[in-house]
């Protein structure tokens, strides 16, 4: 197990290197630059800025310089949010995104698995039909629709919850963005769970469990569900990485100071270092969660255990 984790962490290094390299050059090949504003700057100012940020040097030098700094944990200053380094920006925003994302992840996972299981146990019933219809809606309706509708109903019409902001970070502020963020993922979990539970309930070893008079609770939870969760667990890694690194849409609608909006703002403004910072952040989350999920997978399924 220990060796497995070490090996995986070691293999993360080349992965990160490739991610950084690709995004560095892709970003530079996109037309425009951080200081190409609507009203062009005077050439002298432009030249000074380029010099200050080393953008006047050959691309290769910039790349090597970036790599060198990145290895020491220095991701450079932001071009747009002057006076802030990327580390500071992310360090400030990430706790909000992680808090919101964790709640959304838990809601999506447990809610999705729960209703998916119910649907599977009542296969082809009205309840199954209802749950799956809602799940389809959850997947298809984008959260820039769900978010405002939630705000309209619960904040404006019913005045039950605040319409946005973080406030003191209490649950009242979290609830609407959490639902908006979780809903599409919850729907995916529900569909995945239903499919694999239905398959799982028809296996030979479930027949064995029933033939030996095991109580329905044991048959369903101990035997059918553990196997059925394997595909769900596989989906957990990309889902967790996406939710915990923030959503530009949800954070904008509910004015939450997380890191999600940096993706969009950085890309639009050609804030090279900010984009690179967020890309590395997401890559690290994906790598870490894939590793965690593989360990979890091994715990659930002895056939793929890493020893």
């Amino acid at each position, binding site marked *: 197990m220990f060796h497995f984790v070490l090996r995986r962490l070691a293999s993360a290094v080349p992965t990160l290197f490739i991610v950084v390299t690709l995004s560095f050059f892709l970003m530079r090949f996109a037309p425009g630059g951080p200081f190409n504003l609507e009203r062009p700057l005077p050439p002298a100012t432009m030249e000074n800025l380029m010099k200050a940020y080393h953008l006047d040097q050959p691309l290769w030098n910039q790349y090597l310089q970036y790599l060198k700094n990145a290895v020491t944990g220095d991701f450079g200053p932001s071009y747009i949010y002057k006076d802030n380094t990327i580390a500071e920006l992310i360090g400030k925003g990430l706790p909000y995104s992680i808090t919101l994302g964790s709640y959304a992840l838990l809601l999506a996972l447990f809610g999705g698995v729960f209703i998916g299981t119910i649907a599977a146990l009542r296969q082809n019933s009205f309840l199954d039909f209802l749950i799956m219809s809602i799940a389809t809606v959850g997947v298809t309706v984008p959260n820039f629709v769900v978010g405002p509708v939630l705000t309209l109903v619960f904040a404006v019409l019913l005045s039950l919850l605040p319409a946005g902001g973080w406030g003191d970070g209490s649950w009242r502020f979290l609830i609407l963005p959490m639902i908006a963020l979780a809903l599409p993922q919850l729907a995916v979990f529900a569909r995945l769970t239903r499919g694999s539970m239905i398959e799982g309930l028809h*296996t030979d070893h479930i027949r064995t469990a029933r033939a030996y008079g095991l109580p329905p609770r044991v048959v369903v939870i101990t*035997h059918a569900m553990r196997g059925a969760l394997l595909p769900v667990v596989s989906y957990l890694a990309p889902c967790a990485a996406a939710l915990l690194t923030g959503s530009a849409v949800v954070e904008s609608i509910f004015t939450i100071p997380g890191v999600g909006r940096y993706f969009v703002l950085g890309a639009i403004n050609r804030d090279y270092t900010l984009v690179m910072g967020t890309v590395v952040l997401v890559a690290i989350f994906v790598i870490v969660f894939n590793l965690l999920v593989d360990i979890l997978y091994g715990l659930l399924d002895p056939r793929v255990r890493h020893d």
Partner: protein
Amino acid sequence: MDMRANVLSVRGLKVDFTTPDGDVKAVKGIDLDVKPGETLAVVGESGSGKSQTMMGIMGLLANNGRVTGSAKYRGRELIGLPLKGLNEVRGAKITMIFQEPMTSLDPLYTIGRQIAEPIVHHKGVSFKQAKVRVLELLKLVGIPDPERRINSYPHEMSGGQRQRVMIAMALANEPDLLIADEPTTALDVTIQAQILDLLRELQKRFGMAIVLITHDLGIVKHFADRVVVMRRGEVVERGNIEQIFEHPKEDYTRMLIDAVPSGAKEPPEDSAPIILEGRNVAVDFAIGGGFFTRATKLFRAVDGVTVRLKRGQTIGIVGESGSGKSTLGRALLRLLPSSGHYHFGDRNISNFDRSAMRPLRKELQLVFQDPYGSLSPRQTVGEIITEGLRIHEPQLSRAERDKRAIAALKEVGLDPAARNRYPHEFSGGQRQRIAIARAVILKPKVVILDEPTSALDRSVQGQVIELLRDLQEKHGLSYIFISHDLAVIKAMSDYVIVMKNGKIVEEGETEDIFDTPHDTYTKTLMAAAFDLE
């Protein structure tokens, strides 16, 4: 007779399935009695309703199934019993083992835990307390080193061992009745014999009754006290072993008994030329290794085997699963990378690659075991059997191809109208005939038959063997007949090769091998197969 004296009394039991095409009556009102300590064999071919009867009694039917009638365990009605009551009986008083030892255990839990589960739930003890009993059971069913194996997962055990684990589970609560649904069908013959011996010994020791559901009359004769013969959801005959085997009343029963393949094949004349030869055939498979890493180990599936097939000869290749017999068949047809020297007729084909082999494919045909998986479900039978003609004889017109298809279907005993229908409309035996038609339509010289009868009922098996023999005689075909089934090999081939672990352990004329086997392994194989009959 007092019905309470029976462990199980079944009266007027019916099982129906609701399907989109209307109701299917799988069991049409049968009566059965199982006395304490006896072994009752329920015999029938696929579709006879023998399994569904027991599934119905145990409340294990698929969602679209319905059971009516009466089934009493020691006077207690099981049909219509609420789940709670049913669960007091199943797993404790009545237990089951199934045909599929590979999938009947949960892959995610240790076998120790799975054997313990019924104990824990029926006796209300903890898993820790159940452990002693589990160890005892593992010892009882002959699992070596139980202290260690208790923590094994199913995938770490062989098929035979898994079936032993199932038996341990079945015995855990000292049942009155053990229902064994085709318990040995999926196992190799030597393992089959061991499992049956074990069941017999355990029955002697604990005195439970056994209901043995099987299609194989061979194992019934030595194992059961009484027999119930089922056909199309009805009981056609019942009686004790002697009555059934010595004086069967019904034609159907007689047919089942006689269905063990018989006959023998005369060897070709000594002067017959060798048509296909493989010398020192070796096949390696790579084990392990990932996308970037090289394979860590090579597994030698076939290890320096030499086969010489004469014109008109049938070589039977026998072996248990993993012996390399199917791999050898494919290597001889140059269908997978292998080393060795190969000759077809007077041509050296050792260095032929895929494109060089293509023109020869017409003459070297292969028929597979699985008549369900080897025919494309989206093509009509006509398209399936003429596909080879389109490639090998492209000059034929559509009408000529159709003529050949009609002839081929007639030859294999099918109605030529079949060519406009799809494979799913045919039974297993008919599908195997279609597969054979697909091979013979090309007028091949050599046909490799890989377990062509293993998925079929005995009665159908006999017909397919008959057909293969006729075709051989008519067209002077040479066969390599691969099978684990010694009775079929004996009936089909004039020369036998016995394989184990990729090597030939013994070979010779069929009569010699079957009458005076020399090798210990061959002897074990023979004993396992024929002592049962």
